[in-house]
């Protein structure tokens, strides 16, 4: 199982805060990138975009050494490379909150914050949103898909052999039932349709039709495997 990565971007210039947040989020199973400046964050976003990866959430400090964090929030909300944004600030005033929310923050977190509550909020937030997979996981899934497809081809080959000899009526019906579902999933839609049709005909005509079914099915499997 690929435990897929909910990826968080922390933009925070106070090292003790960013380290604590990063360590806690990592312990919870998140993948975390940290930037200390707006420029550093932009570079990380660019690198991620090149890899076709999105951040599931960004935690952005409003007071950063090279500018207003709200500026970065605005950029994040107008791009598609970050799904959710939290603004973090020591300023608890209504105007500061409004400023950050207007810039595109989904939530405004005031320092000092309750770490446990914040982590829970982040988990809820990213859990609700569609998670974007990372390239490495995509590669893993693609390789798995290839392995499954190869195993299925081998399976079809053995089914073809199995169909050479007579088999119990119930087993043949069960085999047809399996083929109609699995062939469709593996992209053999013609085989799936044929299995469905043969299953209906076998139901109507009974065991006397079994031999015809086996022969027709074998032929179609051979055709499917030859493609």
């Amino acid at each position: 199982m690929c435990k897929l990565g909910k990826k968080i971007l922390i933009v925070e210039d106070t090292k003790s805060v960013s380290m604590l947040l990063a360590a806690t989020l990592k312990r919870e199973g998140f993948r975390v990138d940290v930037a200390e400046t707006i420029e550093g964050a932009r570079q990380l976003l660019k690198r991620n975009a090149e890899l076709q990866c999105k951040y599931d959430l960004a935690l952005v400090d409003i007071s950063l050494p090279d500018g207003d964090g709200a500026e970065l929030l605005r950029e994040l909300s107008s791009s598609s490379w970050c799904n959710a944004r939290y603004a973090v600030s020591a300023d608890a005033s209504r105007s500061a909150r409004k400023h950050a929310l207007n810039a595109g923050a989904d939530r405004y977190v005031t320092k000092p914050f309750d770490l446990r509550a914040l982590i829970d909020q982040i988990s809820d937030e990213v859990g609700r949103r569609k998670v974007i997979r990372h390239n490495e996981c995509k590669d893993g899934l693609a390789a798995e898909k290839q392995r499954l497809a190869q195993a299925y081809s081998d399976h079809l080959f053995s089914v073809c052999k199995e169909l050479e000899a007579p088999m119990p009526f119930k087993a043949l019906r069960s085999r047809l039932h399996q083929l109609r579902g699995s062939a469709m999933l593996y992209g053999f839609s013609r085989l799936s349709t044929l299995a469905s049709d043969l299953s209906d005909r076998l139901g109507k005509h009974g065991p006397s039709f079994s031999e015809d079914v086996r022969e027709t099915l074998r032929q179609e499997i051979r055709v499917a495997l030859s493609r």
Partner: protein
Amino acid sequence: MNKLRKLIIMDDDPHYAGMLALKIRMQFPELMVSSYNKADLPGGYDVYVLDNDFFGEKCGAQLAEEVRKIAPRSLVIVLSGTLEFALLKRLVNCHAAGVFDKSKEDDLTQMMGLIDQFLLQSPNQSPVSKSSSFQGTLSGIRGLMKEWNKRLAFEEKRVS
């Protein structure tokens, strides 16, 4: 603390279960997906995808009823090759959220939509710890009742 949500596919065909699990994982990376090829039910899952036909026996409805007992707040989906009226009626009665034809791509797309709806409506909760999860399922089911009714009406007409 939020729990990782879990989905189980119960199907006697390991090839079907394997590929379906992969497709679900690709679409819902936040889910832990397992497959199981025996007809005895493991508990503790949020979503159950049950094959109606186990080694030639039509036991989907029975499995769905058992799931209702052991995991009442879970989402139950049944995959079947045949959409018979009796099966549909029995599944409605045990609050299965949907029955889909496993050989139809459109049905699988609908099934994914149903899972998506369930995940969005009951975010990151244990299937047994909070009642709101059940509310989410119920409201998901409400949205699907139209589809159910359409199918039931169609099957009823076909049978009579």
